[in-house]
């Protein structure tokens, strides 16, 4: 089955938090590492401050762009209220990664929380750090690159609390 070796990630938050940018970066990092990648989300109404959810899948061969319910390996949550709303996406034993533990006061800019969370999350994935850095370079204009690298590294070096495992 071609999808046996696919990593399934769901990122959830609310409009304006950078959910879509976050999944762009994950997808780009996986692409640069050499995986087949698909990512998907719903634009439009949902972004007027409403819930935003975006899926990324990477592996040897990705078919559907959508992570089936109950098959996500990871649920990455930028806004705590969105964890419950999306828990049904996780597979048994899937991991919730939230912003707890990230020292918001140390962020170079509050809007880089999404990238700091990616830094924290990146330790769960077997993608080389060079791919993450290159993905950040591609996904941000040059004048925002350095603060986002700082935010990413801050997250990557954070001792996240024990991950929340879906039973």
């Amino acid at each position: 089955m071609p999808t046996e070796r696919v990593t399934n990630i769901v990122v959830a938050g609310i409009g304006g938090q950078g959910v879509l940018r976050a999944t762009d970066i994950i997808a780009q990092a996986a692409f640069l590492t050499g995986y087949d990648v698909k990512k998907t989300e719903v634009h439009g109404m949902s972004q007027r401050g409403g819930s935003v959810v975006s899926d990324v899948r990477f592996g040897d061969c990705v078919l559907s762009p959508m992570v089936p319910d109950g098959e996500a390996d990871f649920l990455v949550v930028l806004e705590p209220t969105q964890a419950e709303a999306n828990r049904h996406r996780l597979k048994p034993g899937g991991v919730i990664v939230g912003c707890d533990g990230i020292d918001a006061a140390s962020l170079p800019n509050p809007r880089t929380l999404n990238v700091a969370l990616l830094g924290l999350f990146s330790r769960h994935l077997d993608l080389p750090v060079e791919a993450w850095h290159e993905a950040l370079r591609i996904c941000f204009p040059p004048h925002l690159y350095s603060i986002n690298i700082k935010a990413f590294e801050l997250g990557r070096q954070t001792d996240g609390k024990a991950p929340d495992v879906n039973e």
Partner: protein
Amino acid sequence: MTRENKRLLSGNEAIAYAALAAGVHLGTGYPGTPSTEILETFGAIGGKAQWAPNEKVALEVAIGVAYGNGRALVTMKHVGLNVAADPLFSVAYTGVSGALVLAVADDPGMASSQNEQDTRRYAVAAGVPVLEPSDSQEAYDLFFRAVDLSERFGTPIILRLTTRVSHSKGIVKLNDVVPVARAPHFERNTQGRVLIPAYARPAHRRLRHRLSQIAEWNETSELNPIWEGGDDLGIIASGVAALHAREAVPGSRLLKLGMSYPFPVRRVREFVASVKRCVVIEEGDPVIQELCLSHRLPVEGKPDEERFGELNVSRVRRMINGDHAPRTAPPPGRPPQLCPGCPHRTVFEALHDLDCIVAGDIGCYTLGVLPPFEAMDSCTCMGASIGVGLGLRHVLPLDEARRVVSVIGDSTFVHSGLTGIVEMMYNPPPTGHVVLILDNRTTAMTGLQDHPATGRTLKGEPTHQLSLEDVCRAIGVDDVTVFESQPGQKDHFRELLRAKLAQEKPCVLIVRRECLLAARRRKQASQTVEQEGVTCQPSE
């Protein structure tokens, strides 16, 4: 960065890249989720891209390009094709000498639409071939195929997209080979292009003949591959549904219809005969299912309850297993809302306070229906606010008629509000009428696109600016008032609206203040900061 000429692109972006490589002379359309980014990207990477006032005009401009032996791309969402349906049916008769490709994006599940109509119905009704890409790579590849077929058979082609094709990103290998560019030029073809009845009758026969030729070509084309698997179960699928199905039942044989119309009936018949059980999996209406059944092919389709919303792997799995038990809905997400500080808020507070009967329209301001405003009573289609409001004024008892207000945005007004104003002056209701144009200087809902009344083109360059007040006056509205909205003017605006309602004559009240997101984007434009789609910052 590209890896071996590969890029990570959305389906919409992939079409833009293909259009540029295929030598498209002009791309035009009207913004509409999920189609909008096609033209934005086409313009950004160097294509000649422009927004039209509405989809009908866009298609007509594109037809002109294709009559002139050029290559044209026209983009819209599914409901946009309703607006453009009139020229579509006629250009199917006339055919084209250049290339005419309509990229039309359906929104199953209605993430940002008023219905979930299926564009393939138009393909069948008008007699226009339809291609159904399943992901970004296919969107890219099928665009070239669409240009080729359009020129080879002299037909318009519909590229039917769905939300998950338009807005999903995947890896796309870009072409090195660029098709030979055509030099636009005019060839007179009076009998082919002038649809007076005497010329239209043979044109209809030519259309049916052309479709039978394309159907014959489609029987053996590589657009409809069979993905091998066991013969216990066969799947016929199209678009992204084919990928869901392959993932749901990877061991089954699958016929993927890349061109579902004209229907390759022999190929489908052979496939159906090669498997013990055959199920059709398609997103939207049961179009392929009905085509199969009309040819007496023994296939299973989806039950009515599976007709709603988007498909996904789990749903497809249940459909194949015949599990039709009702599902528990996932927990609701946080609903969208008007941004804090949005100038529309002032208007909806007043409409609420005055207990108006509000004929609404399509845009951000449709969110005025939700709490805390709850100040919208209808939203039908683009431009309908004015006609619906007039109809209510004509028929309601006077005490109710006097409270009716039409509310329409600036871009929607340009799209299809003008004729409503003509109607208001031609057949004025006894109590007059009040039309509110909420002019936030942008097409906000779809992501801040310019339009004729912003005075800027798709590429942000200055152009003639349509004056909303002047055009209303020119139509004959004596009372046109422009209210330059500022924060804290809630009471002032409410009293102005109360006065307009009391006048009992046709009037237009333009409430003008730039969308906060558009203003921010303009300020940031010089920094070339790319925002992430359209996002607002609830905390700001």
